[in-house]
């Protein structure tokens, strides 16, 4: 298990009902594994999976990315600034 900090924004934040959570990620410690940990607690999030982007330490990365303990991660819904 690796502990990461997950931040939530936009509609994902409304769904989760919090700005951040500590997530315990199972092997293989990927973004996908982190998403599984989160979706287990918030099942409606699964419907969002196809449109989310993963940021690790404030950079977009693929969901295959392996996370280190202490990483700041976020599953970002489609941006709509401008």
């Amino acid at each position, binding site marked *: 298990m690796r502990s990461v900090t997950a931040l939530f924004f936009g509609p994902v934040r409304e769904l989760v009902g919090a700005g951040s959570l500590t997530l315990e990620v199972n092997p293989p410690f990927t973004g996908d594994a982190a998403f599984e940990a989160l979706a287990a607690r918030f099942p409606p999030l699964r419907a969002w999976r196809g449109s989310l982007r993963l*940021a690790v330490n*404030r*950079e977009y990365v693929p969901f295959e990315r392996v996370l280190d303990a202490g990483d700041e991660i976020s599953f970002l819904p489609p*941006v709509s600034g*401008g």
Partner: protein
Amino acid sequence: MVAVTEDPIDVALVLRGIGTARTGGIDIFIGTVRDTNEGKSVGSIEYTAYVPMAEDLMRRIESEIRDRWPVENVTIVHRIGLLRVGEISVVTAAGAPHRAEAFEACRYAIERVKADVPIWKKEFAPVPG
């Protein structure tokens, strides 16, 4: 200069930062809150951001622009918080020796902001009456 800010955006201030003696053309794009979106009436929009990541990405966009065009200055500013119809949400600007470069750089900046910068809007209907 790039920023995510809760304060109203002052275009005159942006302009003062963007021109130099070597600048021949400045292009400024201003995004404002429109009273309709996809057929629905809009009264206000709340913008939220993943602020440090948004500013990191804006800095990267600025540096991509500087690699690609001979610009003198680039500005990318996005406001967050609750904005009413008519208020300015975003400004991108580029000053360059010639106008083609200024237009291209400014357009690139706003397109990249809209595609990638982690900012979200939530629309609210006008208050009746």
